[in-house]
């Protein structure tokens, strides 16, 4: 013990929780997920009781892993339904190293365990929202309250969702196999979609606690990194997704001003964009180009990179972005993509063309409850000088958003509409 060490690495417990659960579920099987989580929980509790008075051990990870293993072995000896597997489980734990310092095999073991868990948590037999909750709980060490905060739901609802998930795991049953052969592509796709959703929950500024959302982005990136670092997940599409996440997260800190007010892309201080993360993204973008497939992640990563590469808003390669959006609308016909494409059209061909493009979009009704739809429309109408209609749009958008900083921004725009409208009337009067 080292009593002089009196602080822990950020999120150490959460990280170690994920590692312990990965190791323990390998031993017990996913149908005993609860046992793994209990042993992990007890290891952390033991740390609180001991490190507080005695200081942090030289190798906290190894300390925790050893406690969790011992706890797991206690459970094996005590509970009769594990009796038949006692020898097997004891051998499993005895063969496993406890930390990277003890053995180079440790990192591999953990990565392998986490990869198996990722595939299991993102199994197509679970609903997408269950996949996300289960991933956060088991792989990321999130608590139910934290998951609930990220998804603006109650702790009880998340707890219920996790209970159902565990039942479903046993019913299906979902195991910790790494998919291979023809099944791999579909399973990998499901994983990528779920991790993409996880990232977007964090990235979109629609609701929830700012800090929690940033952590969701970090976790999504960490998990895709585990994926691409393993031969099973080292695929162009996974690299494309990772590139996309990195390009977007590099710009996160510039999205709001010092008071927390949202800034438009045009208004952001680009010197705040994290160049190191962009460089990381670029490396994965290059690796994503290995195959023939151009997925929606490739296109979105390409678009995000165009933004990252532009020194100013004005010098952005909008034509290239538009061509990427044209391809994206071929794959993804969602009205949200069409809306984003319209914003790009306004930069290439002007606001009238953008308004025409929105008018030509099918299933616009589904966008009516989406604040951004009204905000974009209002922005374009403002640009063509239709301040009265723009005001209606900004007001509707401000009603729909849940984010205070966005509401402040939209109200500011609304006031500008009023001002310009009054000026217009004044000018008309003078002219008349």
């Amino acid at each position, binding site marked *: 013990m080292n009593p002089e060490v*009196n*602080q*822990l690495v950020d*999120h*150490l*417990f*959460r990280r*170690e*929780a994920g590692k312990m659960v990965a190791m323990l579920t390998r031993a017990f099987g996913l149908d005993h997920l609860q046992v793994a989580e209990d042993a992990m*929980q007890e290891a*952390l*509790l*033991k*740390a*609180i*009781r*001991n*490190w*507080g*008075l*005695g200081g942090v051990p030289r190798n906290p990870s190894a300390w925790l892993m050893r406690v969790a293993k011992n706890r797991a072995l206690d459970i094996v000896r005590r509970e009769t339904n594990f009796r038949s597997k006692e020898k097997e489980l004891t051998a499993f734990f005895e063969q496993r190293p406890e930390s990277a310092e003890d053995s180079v095999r440790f990192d591999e073991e953990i990565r392998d365990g986490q990869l198996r868990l990722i595939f299991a948590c993102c199994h197509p037999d679970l609903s997408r929202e269950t996949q996300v909750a289960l991933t956060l709980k088991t792989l990321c*060490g*999130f*608590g*139910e*309250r*934290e998951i609930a905060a990220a998804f603006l739901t109650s702790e009880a609802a998340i707890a219920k969702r996790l209970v159902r998930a565990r039942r479903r795991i046993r019913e299906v049953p979902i195991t910790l196999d790494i998919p291979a052969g023809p099944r791999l592509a579909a399973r990998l796709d499901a994983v990528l979609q779920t991790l993409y959703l996880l990232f977007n929950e964090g990235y979109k500024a629609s609701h929830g606690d700012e800090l929690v959302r940033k952590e969701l982005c970090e976790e999504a990136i960490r998990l895709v990194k585990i994926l691409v670092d393993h031969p099973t997940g080292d695929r162009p599409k996974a690299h494309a997704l990772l590139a996309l996440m990195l390009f977007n997260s590099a710009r996160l800190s510039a999205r709001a001003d010092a008071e927390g007010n949202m800034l438009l892309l045009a208004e952001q201080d680009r010197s705040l964009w994290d160049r190191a993360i962009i460089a990381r993204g670029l490396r994965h973008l290059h690796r994503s180009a290995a195959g023939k497939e151009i997925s929606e992640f490739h296109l979105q990563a390409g678009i995000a990179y165009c933004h990252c590469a532009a020194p100013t808003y004005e010098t952005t390669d909008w034509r290239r972005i538009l061509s990427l959006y044209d391809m994206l609308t071929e794959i993804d016909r969602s009205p949200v993509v069409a809306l984003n494409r319209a914003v790009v059209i306004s930069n290439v061909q002007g606001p009238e063309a953008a308004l025409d493009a929105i008018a030509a979009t099918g299933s616009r009704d589904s966008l009516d409850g989406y604040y951004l739809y009204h905000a974009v429309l209002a922005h374009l109408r403002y640009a063509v000088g239709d301040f009265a209609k723009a005001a209606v749009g900004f007001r509707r958008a401000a009603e729909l958003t849940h984010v205070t900083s966005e509401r402040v921004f939209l109200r500011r725009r609304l006031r500008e509409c009023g001002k310009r409208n009054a000026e217009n009337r004044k000018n008309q009067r003078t002219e008349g």
Partner: protein
Amino acid sequence: MMKTESNSFLYIFRGGADPNQMSPEDMQKNMDAWFAWMGELRSKGHLEGGEPLQDGGKVLKGKKGQSVTDGPYAEGKEEVGGYLIVTARDLDHAAELAKGCPIFQNDGSVEVRAIRKMSDDLAAAE
């Protein structure tokens, strides 16, 4: 009774390890609170020493200690998890210093006991 300039007190920690609702992040925050509390005791010169205790142990009873049982096997709430020795002016002061202990966040308890110094006893006996 003559008081020496400072007195030693024993903190006995019990329980404080049943937070089922705590997430790993919450637990790490609790850990940080321990470090902060201990750090303050140390920086103000109150901390003399202390250590956590391992779970379990043996309890000896009987005339020659011949009755040996594993244990104490108390419930989590009762088991002594560790001890500290602190320096304080008097019992009230020692109790005051203990109030910042994060063990209370987890329903644990701290027993504060003055350590009897034999020199004091001699003074009292005179």
